[in-house]
């Protein structure tokens, strides 16, 4: 019967055969520009830092499929495991399991606050992000008028948090602005476009639309463009630069609020290495001359890339993802 399990042998973690430190990252979903850009940043970091970077995502944004991948990575005894969980609560037990197997665990992009993760690599705070969205929208709308939000998954915690911030910020600082509708389009560009069209019809005075995620942002811009309402209805959103470039250029989108996703990927990989090497993060530091001013709050264990990056027609060309 012995040999049926290794669970009782002392954990010999980190014994990668190559001797290289292995950092694994599990995105919510493979094949979308956002996470593939993080992957590109991570690969760059791997090259620079001499680590091995593993990237494996599910084919649908599904918590169960993601869990299977995390389990296989635990089995691979990677040195650091970083996850962008589809369902934060469901990831918590798995991260605990990974930690018990001697793996350093962290989250990136989306947090699992109730988990044992040692670091959350945060792009920007929900507060900052939401505010950047409402500010760019209100700037385009001239601080007044009706607007609506097209969100994506009904259950995405970060999107729901952005919505709260937008509501609060507009109520506090833009009394003339009025949120008239909130709809959910799933991760579906065409549906987002159709819904934005319906919104414009339902609210003839609509002046602004927020496309909250990377699928909705180009969708709502496309809808405005198709309706011939460029200059009448302003959109902002969280789209990736290459997808948004045409819309920023023709004015159907006023701004896309995101962050430097490749840098986020780079920082994720870098953090993974730090964790694997058992280093402690400083309260404030520069990674290299491109990624500066990163902060780390030891209390909440949140590492912050920096303020959000607002893509406009002027800077969008610089980003190739």
């Amino acid at each position, binding site marked *: 019967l012995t040999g049926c399990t290794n669970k009782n042998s002392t954990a010999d973690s980190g014994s990668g055969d190559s001797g290289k430190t292995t950092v694994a990252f599990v995105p919510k979903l493979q094949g979308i520009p956002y996470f593939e850009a993080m992957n590109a940043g991570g690969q760059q970091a791997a090259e620079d830092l001499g680590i091995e970077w593993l990237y494996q995502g599910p084919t649908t944004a599904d918590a169960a499929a993601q869990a*299977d991948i995390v389990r296989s990575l635990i089995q691979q005894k990677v040195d650091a495991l970083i996850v962008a969980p589809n369902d934060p609560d469901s990831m918590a037990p798995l991260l605990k399991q990974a930690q018990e197997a001697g793996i350093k665990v962290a989250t990136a992009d989306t947090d699992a606050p109730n988990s044992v993760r040692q670091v959350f690599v945060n792009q920007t705070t929900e507060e900052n992000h939401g505010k950047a969205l409402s500010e760019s929208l209100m700037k385009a709308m001239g601080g007044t008028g009706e607007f609506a939000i097209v969100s994506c998954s009904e259950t995405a915690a970060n999107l729901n948090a952005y919505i709260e911030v937008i509501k609060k910020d507009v109520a506090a600082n833009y009394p003339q602005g009025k949120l008239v509708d909130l709809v959910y389009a799933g991760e579906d560009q065409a549906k987002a476009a159709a819904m934005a069209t319906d919104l414009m019809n339902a609210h003839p005075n609509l002046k602004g639309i927020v496309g909250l995620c990377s699928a909705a942002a180009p969708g709502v811009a496309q809808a405005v463009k198709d309706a011939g309402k460029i200059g009448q209805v302003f959109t902002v959103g969280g789209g990736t630069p290459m997808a948004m470039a045409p819309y920023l250029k023709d004015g159907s989108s006023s701004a896309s609020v995101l962050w430097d996703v490749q840098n986020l990927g780079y920082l994720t990989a870098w953090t993974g290495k730090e964790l694997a090497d058992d280093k402690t993060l400083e309260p404030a530091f520069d990674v290299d001359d491109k990624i500066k001013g990163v902060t780390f709050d030891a209390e909440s264990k949140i590492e912050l890339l920096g303020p959000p990056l607002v893509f406009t027609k002027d800077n969008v060309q610089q980003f190739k993802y």
Partner: protein
Amino acid sequence: MSTTTLKRNDVQQRSHGFGYKSVKMLLTQRIALLGLLIVVVLAVMMSLDAAGAMSGSYDADYLAAALISAVPLAMLGLAELMVILSGRGGIDLSVGAIVSLCCIVFGYSYGIWDLGLFPSIVITAVAGAVCGAINGFLVAYIGFPPLIATLATFYAFKSLALIISGQKPISTIQIQDFFSAAQSVEIPVIGYNLPNIPLGIFTFLIPTALLAWILLNRTTFGRRLYALGTNDVAARWAGVDTRANRMMAYVLSGLISGLVAIVIVAQFASARPDAGVSGNGLALPAITIAVLGGVAITGGIGRVSGILLATLLVVWLNAGILLAFAGNEGTQLQLLALGLLLIGASLLNNLTRKKFGVLY
């Protein structure tokens, strides 16, 4: 006509030796084929592992850990078994949506209203059974084709789950602690030298499978279900109340889906209103498992053991693919493997029917 089948087979059996017999067994006994495939998968993966082609070791601990995803899959496979067995195009597209709805029911009763574990489980199971009863009523009493009735309720239940929950997952402290019900545990007494097994296997899957097995093989309801699935007309002539029994199959499917909701809440430590429909949803994998497990889409044929073995095969194959193929290719190849398995298995069914006339 039937005379001839027997005679022809007699002749062939006599003129062929052991090889023929074992081939025939593998083809006609889905259980044997699945068993063989599992052995092949394990052997191939382990030798790849031994040859160093795997990025992690494909060992008993890993296989045991992978079982956690077998729990909902196998249980929903059993739910599909019930309805597909009932014949007349029986199928349940709504199981995933029922899971979603029941997750919320459980989330409220256990996590928010704090009714206690046992009452919450009962309430959730009843909610699932009621959803199933709606399907069953539409199919058995009104005469809806099952595919359509359950497509409609799929949309309706899915929507209700989101509306009721205000599209927010429920993850109160009770729910988070409920993960202990899905955790991997050491089997008492003999367990020290065995891998830890996810608790859901013992608390949910084995009891459900056992009950399903007893129901199908040891009760008169099971007999009637097989009878009306095999030949609805003959069942009526034999005095079987085909409507009530067919309806019951859908109620059971809903009931099992309700239990799966509890498993999923435990496994993910949160009650999500889209738990059963996100991504490709849970219904399609469950139907796939059923078909792979040898359940005939025409009704009347299918076994609990087929479902369990098919689940093991898929779960362990998928787990192996993740270790064997790094990066996005790994998850993509899982789709390829599933598609080929499904088409291969049904082509094989066909061959079997042609060659041996019968199928078990």
